[in-house]
């Protein structure tokens, strides 16, 4: 996986217990083209509290351009923003 840290637009599912599950996201490339990537499987989820800044980390599996890829998504709780952190 390569470090990207790109802001993304996310469709996520919030359940009764307050768990957040990413469903699919949209990423824009340099020429303003959108790609929608669906999350097939969440392998690991953990809370990162480094420097007191809470971030949910998701290690997921997705199908990107016809191949299964591992990626890491991050959700920053204070700012409510999603990032494609690594792919």
């Amino acid at each position, binding site marked *: 996986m390569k470090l990207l840290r790109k802001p993304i637009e996310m469709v996520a599912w919030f359940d009764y217990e307050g768990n957040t599950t990413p469903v699919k996201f949209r990423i824009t490339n340099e020429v303003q083209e959108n790609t929608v990537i669906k999350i097939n499987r969440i392998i690991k989820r953990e809370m990162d509290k480094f420097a007191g*800044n809470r971030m949910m980390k998701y290690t997921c599996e997705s199908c990107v351009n016809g191949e299964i890829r591992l990626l890491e998504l991050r959700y920053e709780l204070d700012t409510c923003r999603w990032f494609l952190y690594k792919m």
Partner: protein
Amino acid sequence: MTLNKNNRIIMHIDVNSAYLSWQAVYELQQGSNRDLRNIPAVIGGSIADRRGIVLAKSIPAKPYGIKTGEVLWEARQKCPQLVVIPPNYQLYMKCSKALGELLKEHFPSIQRFSIDEFFLDYTGMEAHYGEAVETANKIKNRVKEELGFTVNIGIGNNKLTAKMAGELKKPDLVHTLWQHEIKDKMWPLSVGELFMVGRKTKKKLKELNIHTIGDLATTDIKLLQGKLKSFGRLIWAYANGIEDTPVYGENHVPMKGMGNSSTIKFDVEDRTTAYKILLSLTESVALRLRDANCCCSLVSVSVRNTDLLSYSHQRQLFSATNITNEIYKTVKELFDECWKGEKIRHLGVRIGELSSDQVTQLSLFDGKNQEKNRALDQVIDGLRDKYGKPSVIRGIFADGEIVPLLGGVGEEEYPMMSSIL
């Protein structure tokens, strides 16, 4: 088991180069590939605003001779590839809170001593949680794992020895300084290392031929008292590891006074501008004073000129007040009395001798329109509270040259350094 003062167990938790390591950890979390802790780096104010001093430094910056409190350009001269990062107080608050939360999970009584220092009482907890050193190591490692930064933990029989233990060797270590270890671990240190002994006291002690903490501890207390009054007794007790204040809970704030000061972007040469800045500072101080539901009966003004020479002037008020205009009037008088007409770099307003605002003694010589002024302050405070501080400002600041409420670091709850254990 009876708990006497000598078998308390107190821990002191101190973040290693706090500002810098917090910034480093934050950058790493945000995906940066450099770790500020491993390169010569400092946190420093902005040079353009003339607040360019080193606030914190990384350990690799130490060999270059960079000191905390040094001017930035000097530090750059010593190390040209130095990385300078502006301070981010919001981040520091976040880190400090996260550390507090983590400690609260383990311990019932915690005192936040400053933004990066905590005291906690471990007395009587050994039976359940194991030896103090063991627990301290566990906590230290948990902080490192979860929050990403390193801390030093000092353990002793009181707050002073715990704090001194924490300073012994850094970073990421646990030290003890029990009563019987004081002679070996603390006494050989230079007297300047002792809590409360600063540059000035160190010089005075040097004149008395006191160089190490051990020298101080074995000096005749009468000599110190004669030279330094009650402060002499205090540092003598500290040098012997004597100190018995409890670990205060969250709500304990031994506030004796408050003040705001600011280094000004330009040199102030005329009285009108100086008044403006003093007014701006007074507004900040008076707002905080009323917020704490207090009145003050002592006002003090401090001036630092362009030669970095500081002096101050203070006066007892006839009756306690918390009205902005009344405090400002005294501030102006004090400034007129002490200013020698030279260029000013830094101004400060301080108030002391606080008392509750619930009961105040009226006097025949109270200023006119007190009730009106009080009501006015109340309305302005209300507006500022509801719509933000810049919502109501005095017309004199409308040109935007001077900030209407000067002072502070922009972070309301920021706990400042304290000399009271």
